[in-house]
C-alpha cells in the first residue's frame, strides 16, 4: 500500500487473507505526519507486522503476518523503492508487485 505524504492512497494491493482492508481516512494523514519523516519503521504486533518505508512520493506500507521474514521484506523494498518514482510516472506501478 502506498500512501502519499498528504495521506492519500496512491496504490494498494492485498495478496493475502487480511481480516479487513484498511479504510483510508483522515487519520492516515495524521499518522504520516507523526512519523516525523522517519525513513523506515517496523511495527511488531502479537499477530502481525507492518513495515513502512519512505519513498520519494510517500510511504510504502507492507502488511504481513507475524512470521514474515522482515529481512526479506526489507530487501525487496530496497530493490523496489528506487523504481517507485519512475514507475508512477509511467503508470505501471502494479507491475512491481508480485503475487507469491
Amino acid at each position, binding site marked *: 500500500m502506498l500512501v502519499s505524504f498528504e495521506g492519500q492512497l496512491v496504490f494498494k494491493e492485498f495478496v493475502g487473507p*487480511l*481480516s*479487513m482492508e*484498511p*479504510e483510508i481516512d483522515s*487519520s492516515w494523514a*495524521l*499518522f504520516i505526519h*507523526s*512519523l*516525523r*519523516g*522517519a*525513513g*523506515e*519503521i*517496523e*511495527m*511488531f*504486533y*502479537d*499477530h*502481525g*507486522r*507492518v513495515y513502512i518505508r519512505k519513498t520519494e512520493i510517500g510511504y510504502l506500507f507492507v*502488511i504481513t503476518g*507475524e512470521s514474515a521474514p*522482515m*529481512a526479506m521484506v526489507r530487501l525487496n523494498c530496497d530493490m523496489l523503492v528506487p523504481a517507485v518514482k519512475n514507475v508512477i510516472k509511467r503508470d505501471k506501478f502494479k507491475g512491481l508487485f508480485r503475487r507469491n
Partner: protein
Amino acid sequence: MRRNILLVDDQQEVLHSLREGLAEYREVFSVMTAEDGDEAIRRLRQDDISLVVTDLKMPNTDGFGVLAHTMEFYPDIPVIVMTGYSTTEMERLAHKDGAVGYIAKPFKTSALAKLILTALRREADGGTLHNISSGMFLQLVEMEQKTCTIRLADKASGKRGVLFFRDGDLLDARVNGVKGEDAAHQIFRWEEVTLSIENTCRCPERKIEGELQAILLEAMRLKDEEGKAEDIPGKKIEAEDLVPVDDEKEQPGNKEKETLKKRIMRKIGTRYGVATIYHDNVWDGLLGQMTRMGKRFSFGPLRLAYMDVGAARDVILIPGEETILIPVDSRCPRDRMIQALVAETCENSP
C-alpha cells in the same frame, strides 16, 4: 613481514653459534635469545615472538616448562624442542606436549633452519591477505565454519594479534598479553590489516562465549566512543544526546521500571551495541497511532516499533505505562535484537 624467533638455551656458546648460523636467514626472521626458561617466559610476554626454539635441560624452568607455558598462554606460537639427551621417549613426550618440531643435538644449523621455515610457512598455509578490513573477512570465516588460526597485523599501529576459530566459532584472541574478548575488541577495531591464515587451531579451550557478530559490534561501539571522546575533549557523548531524557529519579514506581530496563539490558545490552535504555514520552502520540493501526488489521497489541529516524542511531520504542526508548546502532543485527525484545515484552505482558 619479518618474524622474531626466540632461542632458549642455558649454554651461551650454543646460543652464540646458532645466532651466527641463522644470520643468513635474516630476511625471513630475526633471532632473539634467552638463557633460561624464566627469561623466555618474560620475553614471550614483552616481545612479539613468532616461534620458540628451546633446549630441554635447563635450570629453573626447563624446556618442558617453556613448552607448557607457551601452549597454555600462546597456543599460536609454535615450539621446536632441541636436546642433547635425546631418546625416543623424550621425542614422544615433546610432541605429545605440543612441540611442532624436535631436533637432537648436535645438529647442523641448516637442519634447524629447515624446521623453523617449515613451521613459519604453516602460519600462512591458508593464504595471506593484505590491506583488508578484518570485519568482513571474519564474518566469512564464521559463515564458512572454518577451523583456523588467523594472525593479523594492524597497518596503522603495527600491532599484531591472533584469533582462534574452530568450526566458525571464535574461541579466543590474543594481542600481546591481552586475551579473550578484550583482545578481540582491540583486533576488530583495526581498520586495515594484513592477515595470514593457518588451517589448524591449537587453542585448547574456549575463552570467548559471545557471538562473533556481537563482538564485532561491541568493538565498533568502543571505536565510535573513542572517536567521539577525541572529537569533544572532556565530554563523553552518550546516546542520551539524541533525544530528551526524563529526570526519573524522583518519580514513583521507578523500581519496577528499573527492573524491566535491567532485564532488557541483560538480554540485549552491550551484546548488540545498546548504550542505554530510558523512558521518553515524546513518542506516546505516535505509539498510540501505531496501536490503532494494529487494531485496524486485528493484529492485537503492539509489542515494539523499530524506527530509522535519520539520526546517528535508530530507535526502538516499547509501549507501556511509560514508553521505553532504546537507541541502537543502525549496524546492529536488527532482526536478532527485535526477536529477543519481542520475547522479553511477551514474557512481561499481563
